[in-house]
């Protein structure tokens, strides 16, 4: 098992990123930037069994920005307290899994990594 930090898009733009698209996956840095706190949802995953980073961040075969996504409704099913309205508010820095400190972006709360294989979806299957 390896714990990774992941960010998914909380917005949709025609022909570009769609809500839930996996935008980045990386070894945990323990912080996020100021402009990354309202347009993306950050959380930890156990990447056991997941495709490679290149595959997870690859384009769809029809030119979609990403081939893989994690549905917000799937996350909601794992954590009933998740407020989807707040997540979708582009002005709300709501980060229910990892709460960044406004001064330096470091996470003040860490959660048990979510199981990647149970939440990641290949949009082409």
């Amino acid at each position, binding site marked *: 098992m390896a714990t990774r930090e992941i960010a998914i898009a909380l917005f949709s733009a025609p022909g570009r990123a769609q809500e839930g698209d996996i935008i980045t996956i990386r070894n945990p840095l323990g912080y996020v*930037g100021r402009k990354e706190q309202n*347009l993306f949802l950050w959380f930890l995953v156990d990447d056991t069994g997941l495709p490679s980073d290149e595959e997870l961040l690859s384009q769809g075969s029809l030119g979609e920005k990403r081939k893989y996504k994690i549905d917000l409704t799937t996350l909601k099913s794992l954590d009933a307290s998740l407020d989807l309205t707040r997540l979708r508010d582009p002005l709300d820095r709501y980060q229910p899994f990892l709460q960044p*400190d406004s001064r330096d972006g470091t996470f003040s709360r860490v959660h048990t990594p979510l199981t990647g294989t149970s939440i990641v979806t290949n949009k082409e299957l």
Partner: protein
Amino acid sequence: MASSRLTSLNENVSTYGDGTRDYTSLGTWEAATDIDLVTATAGERLECYPDAEFDDSILLISATTSAEYFRTITCAPGNEPNGVFSNGVVFRYTGGAGTVFNINENYAALYDLSLSKTGNTTGTMFVVSAGVTSPKIVGVVIDEAVNNGTGGITGIALATNTSGAAIVNCGVFNCESIGIALGATGANNYVFNCTAVGNDKGFAATGGSERSIFINCLADNNTTYDFGTEGAATISPSSDFNASSDATAPGSSSRIDQTFTFLDALNGDYHLDETDEGAKDFGTDLSADASYPFDDDTDGDTRTGDWDIGFDEFVVVSSGGSIITIYRRRRR
């Protein structure tokens, strides 16, 4: 003065680095600024700070851009590598077989960063790749690109559909495969005033017939060849004023079998030494070039007099009646 670092009109500037910056991921900046920049009449610029060495990569794609409005990734002011890898903001990507900076967006610009990659794959990897119209890669320093698998790794590679690319004032060192490879088949691409040292192959045309134009490029001590071609590709006859340590520099005014004297090659500083007799003052003036005019060097210094070959212009300036020799600006 014509800077080789072209800027978009009306740039929105964001910062990259640790949690005190706007972004900690190239991918999130890319997604957040992936818009119709032409309609917005604005460009997007990401300025990177040396808060750490970054293990990150990016696929730059799908924003609507133009020659006036485009996306730029560069260092924060004052953090330029100035030709020396260790001086810059370092991206040392270790993830899988992917490309560090994959530029798939017209007019995109990549300036003044230090890039490296290690990986393990049977295929070919790239530190920077581009496959679009008019990408600009300027002042970038690439060093120690290593594929621990059976495949190779190239520093900067242009795909077959690239056109009008400008690779200027870049240094590419110690890549396991080719330093700079131009594979475009349908349009001209330009490599001006770049330096390639210690790669397997320095500068290569890997595709197209006479589409790869090398001018004022310096290649030294590249194992297989300094300048060459792969497969049926050919170098443009417009290539000239290059210099090589072997007999391969293309162009009637180019210099072959040269010995170059660098300031501190052992420590990765390939600025020309004052005593150099291989490249200093043997280049041609590109300040009025029809495709990509500029008159600065990798340090941002203005090129004057007889241009030097390679990414560095040896500069001597007078100050207060005395002569001061400017070698380079090293911070660390």
